[in-house]
């Protein structure tokens, strides 16, 4: 047992559902108790999805516990097949129902007999896998299934596309700024003349997965989701993949150069150096920001970075290499991939922290006292308490990670966004000096007192206590309305009764 106050990565079934619901026309059936289907709420509320989340619960209750789910799961699969005519139904348990040890594979086989669509049981260990590992595995499982199916039917396409082309793997629902990153990556590919053969899983049809081998290479922008699929396609078809996250000016260039190598190795003849130089020096504002006088004062400022592998590693490199910021600590909660993270960041920071204990990370931040933090929502909160600014760079996702405006983290527009984020997280330039010299803007304590002469209403002690229970953001309004009510009725004293009478009469 573990005493836990916070989780950086969700449970395995969330990962599976993120993949299944990213695909077009794929439905998931959750074999789980009532209430475990909160993934639907996350999609609907965080991502503000206009469509009904394609996830249906087949509820596990006392009866199921006593007698097994019997026909229930099979019935729900066949029913959903008839109602929604999906291409694929994915069945998944949750941590809870996975310990019932029901033969879900058998349910899937039986359901398959009566359904027009394909049916798959998500193959993940719900106690060993995190959300991210499960997502990685489920994507690979679905791709593998449709490749095998096409192979069996002899429907695998021959050869490659005429022009260099790419599959972008790992863009998914409820991913950190994934939608915007995807637009930016497509733009980048268009700029360097690489056709996008497929983006999976977001918006993809499982029926078209058989066309994946037509691409010249795979691009895996996020370390957490997509690598298993890329590895599978490499083994199966010898497809090369690029797994350099194009985040920050230097890494984006490195990613593009790797693409150049991969394309040229397959008979292409491309040279992206001019493009990289043009983007770096004249289009992206980030390189110029690094050289600008504003950024000079960032030199040597202390920062702490924490997040998933992809974003924490990339951010550490950007701060250290591109902005001259002193990264005291870089950390990740992706413990399973610790070795890679250490390799990536060791030369750019003083210490590395691999942990999913938010308390330990908060303690480290308090000890280091950096000028800024780049972390998750949790570190943002820690920063608030310690009065250290924090830029959010990584999941776990929050409604604020789904901005309406365009805010990618990847590609050249991403470099601008990241530069803004860094700039806004530090106090900079002249302001910095003024604060140092004069000790801040408002050194004089603001004196507040009752302003108007007529607000001399007497509040009884009980009423005052009652007033104090009311949340601060409406307290002022309620106080004013109550006093107005009391004055209108010539009450000299405000009692609890008067307070609520006022509420009834004026809706205070």
């Amino acid at each position, binding site marked *: *047992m573990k005493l836990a106050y916070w989780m950086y990565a969700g449970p395995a079934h969330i990962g599976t559902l993120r993949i299944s619901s990213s695909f077009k026309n794929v439905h998931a059936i959750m074999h789980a108790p009532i209430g*475990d289907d909160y993934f639907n709420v996350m999609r609907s509320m965080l991502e503000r999805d*206009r469509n009904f989340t394609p996830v249906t619960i087949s509820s596990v209750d006392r009866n199921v516990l006593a007698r097994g789910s019997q026909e229930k799961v099979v019935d729900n699969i066949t029913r959903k097949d008839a109602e929604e005519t999906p291409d694929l139904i994915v069945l998944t348990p949750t941590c809870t129902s996975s*310990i019932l040890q029901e033969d879900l594979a058998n349910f899937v086989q039986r359901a398959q007999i009566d359904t027009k669509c394909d049916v798959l049981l998500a193959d993940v260990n719900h106690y060993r896998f995190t959300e991210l590992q499960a997502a990685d595995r489920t994507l690979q499982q679905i791709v593998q299934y449709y490749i095998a199916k096409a192979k069996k039917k002899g429907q695998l396409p021959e050869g490659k596309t005429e022009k260099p082309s790419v599959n972008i793997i790992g863009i998914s629902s409820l991913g950190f700024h994934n939608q915007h990153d995807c637009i930016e990556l497509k733009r980048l590919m268009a700029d360097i003349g690489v056709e996008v053969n497929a983006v999976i899983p977001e918006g993809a049809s499982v029926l078209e997965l058989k066309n994946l081998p037509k691409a010249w290479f795979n691009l895996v922008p996020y370390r957490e989701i997509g690598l298993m699929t890329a590895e599978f396609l490499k083994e199966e078809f010898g497809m090369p993949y690029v797994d350099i996250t194009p985040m920050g000016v230097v890494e984006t260039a490195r990613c593009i150069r790797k693409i150049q190598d991969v394309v040229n190795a397959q008979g292409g003849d491309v040279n992206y150096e001019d493009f990289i130089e043009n983007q770096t020096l004249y289009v992206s504002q980030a390189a110029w920001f690094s050289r600008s006088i504003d950024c000079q004062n960032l030199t040597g400022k202390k920062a702490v970075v924490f997040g998933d592998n992809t974003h924490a590693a990339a951010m550490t490199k950007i701060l250290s290499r591109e902005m001259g910021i002193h990264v005291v600590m870089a950390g990740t909660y992706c413990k399973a991939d610790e070795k890679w993270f250490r390799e990536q960041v060791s030369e750019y920071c003083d210490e590395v922290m691999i942990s999913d204990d938010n308390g330990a990370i908060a303690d480290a931040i308090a000890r280091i006292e950096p000028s800024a933090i780049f972390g998750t929502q*949790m570190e943002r909160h820690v920063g608030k308490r310690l009065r250290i600014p924090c830029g959010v760079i990584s999941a776990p996702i929050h409604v604020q990670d789904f901005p309406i405006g365009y805010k990618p983290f990847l590609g050249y527009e991403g470099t601008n966004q990241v530069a803004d984020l860094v700039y806004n997280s530090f106090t900079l330039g002249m302001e910095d000096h003024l604060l140092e010299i004069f000790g801040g803007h408002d050194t004089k304590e603001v004196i507040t007192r009752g302003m108007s002469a007529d607000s001399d209403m007497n509040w009884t002690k009980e009423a005052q206590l009652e007033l104090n229970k009311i949340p601060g953001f409406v307290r002022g309004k309620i106080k004013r309305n109550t006093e107005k009510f009391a004055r209108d009725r010539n009450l000299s004293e405000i009692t609890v009764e008067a307070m609520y009478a006022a509420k009834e009469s004026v809706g205070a």
Partner: protein
Amino acid sequence: MTLADTQPQALNFECETGNYHTFCPISCVAWLYQKIEDSFFLVIGTKTCGYFLQNAMGVMIFAEPRYAMAELEEGDISAQLNDYEELKRLCTQIKRDRNPSVIVWIGTCTTEIIKMDLEGLAPKLEAELGIPIVTARANGLDYAFTQGEDTVLAAMVQRCPDKPVGEVEKEERNSISKLLNFGRKKEEVAVTESEYAKHTPLVLFGSLPDPVVTQLTLELKKQGIKVSGWLPSKRYTELPVIEEGYFVSGINPFLSRTATTLMRRRKTKLIGAPFPIGPDGTRAWIEKLCSALGVEPKGLAEREAQIWESVEDYVKLLRGKSVFFMGDNLLEISLARFLIRCGMTCPEIGIPYMDKRYQAAELELLSKTCREMGVPTPTIVEKPDNYNQIQRIYAQDIDLVITGMAHANPLEARGINTKWSVEFTFAQIHGFTNARDVLELVTRPLRRNNSLKDLGWGKLVKDAKV
């Protein structure tokens, strides 16, 4: 006139597949830890439970919280680890770090499935650590959403003292009267006591925000009824005294287990009344309490009329419109009854669980309201099927759907007005004073869409059904 017209219209009950979305009952932790200020809630479950509290409930465990997960790992599931030792390790740490007056263990689906004997372990650990441990099985196998509170309160019933230990302590326990008598001298308190009629002590149960507790207590004081205590109290150490023969009454429709426990284990008398939601319900609730306690109610008709008059601006927006409850928090019957009284029609009330006995008075008032308003009685659908409901919503051209969070945005995108049912769980909706707040919530989608109606943005999905 035929005889049939004078018969009460029978309510129609149905039961569907149970493939519906609602919150897990462990969500009660989110409001109970705030209500009971000296408590610590330990949810014994998996990552699935923890992520729910953190993410879907939006209750970010940020500042020093008084609840946590005891996250079950593979070793716990396969029984390689000793449950007692593990819980002792965690509770010792909680006691050391937070020093609460009580630790509430919230059992989950997983503790049910692996048959963890929480009720057996708790007394032993309680004795060893010297801190009360209350056990509640708020699992999704047996309960939905708000019923989680029911499991906690039912467990706490057992911990209420059965007699006052001494005058001083009695006074301390009775935080309500202490609050109302704040700063007054003893003689003055004695005078206040005389404002009350002589009646058998009454204890109310159900967790409400403190201001609403005060409002309802005052409302009853106007009738000369004294509330001896509330379950839960603000502090665990101030749980109300419950003696055999006391009257008890629940203020929420999802507290049937607590009611049963109070009757069977503590030999109290339950006053079955409609719930104090809406001016009509509040009046009926007070009248029922008065009649049980032998107190003559006074001025209630005027009080109700006055509230109706004050909310007329909202009510006129609702008259003649239809409302559909998908079913989420078990407040559905009371809310539907209130809205029908406001002049709405309601073809269907979805509800996770329907305890016809505990809700008998409310159901009766619902029938009566429909009859008096001249509208058809709703079909009450227990364990609904969300897919089927959505087809019925399309077919019936509903004006307002009260729904859980999963379906609100998709319905809005299809031009159907919605209101989140959870808002009624968290808002102050009880008593005369808060009738306006309920209507403020209910009419908000209608008012919002009135202000946008000229834009022609009704449907925001292509080829949508409807």
